[in-house]
């Protein structure tokens, strides 16, 4: 099929029906459960997954769990409550700040940040970013740490491997504690945990193994982010949620998913990726997307490298078959 600007447009009614049938089958037949627990953040992915679960299983068999911590955006809770009210399922709040403090999440993260910025303290906000668009050159992924006091100029430095690893390991406690909280409620209700990752997150490794990657079923793991938006519109998701810029909701300075991880807007990311997957020549993809052939080639190389480099994240625990 010829590559064109609407190639990723879904027949949303048909896809929604297929997804709902699959959710019912997986929850009841494969997982032997009678409902779904979804972590809701007020973001587009968890909104679509909870709306699909409510449609597939009935809203009375869906529990939305908001899990803010002291650095979460306050807007998340407002939007999450709005969506639960609209789709008719129960939403509860579990503040995980105490648990994270008990695990020394903030302390361990701040200890690593101080290796780069000795003056860092609680009065600063911080975030991790990747430096520029992945299209401008074929660059390896590396990360900048930015700290900023309100009203003051930001300080940015490239992260050393040790600092990066400790900041990420400490921050990932947030996703892992959220997963633990979801399973508490799932086991309490004898329900299943629904994962909210889309194809971009799942295949490029933008998830925490046994954190937000830990779930019983993942209804949108094969959908591109721009297709999740199409479903959101079809399902009647509130405009405020659709228009909200996707963030990590992990770093105190507020980090968009584009600046933290993907390095490109979702339309061009998903279109380039689809073109690469279906062996569309870079020149043809470039023409449709209004970018140079070199930019398309950089995009192809970057996406392919990320998928390959994050393969171990998607592996289940490895077992050893001993010879007889």
């Amino acid at each position: 099929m010829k590559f064109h600007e609407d190639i990723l447009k879904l027949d949303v009614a048909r896809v929604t029906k297929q997804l709902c049938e699959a959710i019912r089958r997986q929850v009841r037949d494969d997982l032997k459960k009678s409902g779904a627990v979804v972590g809701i953040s007020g973001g587009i992915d968890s909104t679509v997954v909870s709306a699909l679960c409510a449609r597939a299983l009935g809203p009375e068999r869906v529990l939305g769990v908001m899990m803010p911590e002291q650095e979460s955006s306050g807007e998340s809770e407002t939007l999450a409550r709005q969506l639960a009210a609209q789709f008719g399922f129960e939403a509860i709040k579990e503040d995980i700040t105490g648990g994270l403090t008990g695990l020394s999440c903030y302390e361990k993260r701040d200890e690593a940040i101080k290796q780069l910025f000795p003056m860092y303290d609680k009065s600063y906000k911080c975030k991790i970013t990747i430096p520029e668009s992945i299209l401008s050159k074929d660059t390896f992924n590396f990360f900048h740490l930015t700290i900023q006091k309100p009203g003051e100029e930001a300080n940015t430095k490239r992260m050393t491997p040790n600092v990066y690893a400790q900041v990420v390991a400490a921050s990932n406690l947030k996703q892992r504690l959220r997963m633990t909280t979801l399973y508490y409620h799932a086991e309490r209700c004898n329900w299943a945990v629904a994962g909210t990752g889309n194809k971009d997150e799942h295949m490029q490794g933008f998830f925490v193994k046994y954190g937000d990657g830990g779930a019983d079923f993942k209804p949108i793991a094969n959908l591109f982010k721009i297709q999740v938006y199409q479903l959101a519109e079809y399902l009647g998701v509130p405009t405020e949620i659709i228009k909200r810029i996707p963030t990590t909701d992990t770093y105190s300075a507020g980090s968009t998913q584009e600046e933290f991880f993907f390095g490109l807007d979702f339309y061009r990311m998903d279109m380039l990726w689809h073109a690469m997957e279906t062996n569309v020549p870079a020149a043809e993809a470039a023409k449709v997307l209004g970018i140079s052939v070199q930019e398309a080639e950089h995009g192809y190389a970057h996406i392919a490298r990320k998928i390959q480099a994050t393969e171990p994240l998607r592996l289940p625990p490895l077992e050893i078959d001993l010879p007889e």
Partner: protein
Amino acid sequence: MEFEAGKIRSEIRAFIVDSYLLGDESVKFSDSDSFMSCGIMDSMGILELVAFLEQHFGVTVTDDEMLPTNLDSVESLVSFIRSKSNC
């Protein structure tokens, strides 16, 4: 300071074998093999490699130099370090 190509090559290979191949010298890779494509290292490995280059050879790798053409094989690393040390 100028480094001799053979010495750079052997020190980089020793670092890679020790850091990413569990010290197993029987694993073969050529000087032109891409670390990423061969699965020798991931993006975290590249960060560690850059830290090694900076510490061991006393060079500074700028953001603009974090490119596969500079860092993704023994061959490219040898050229890169030599070009940096000639500056």
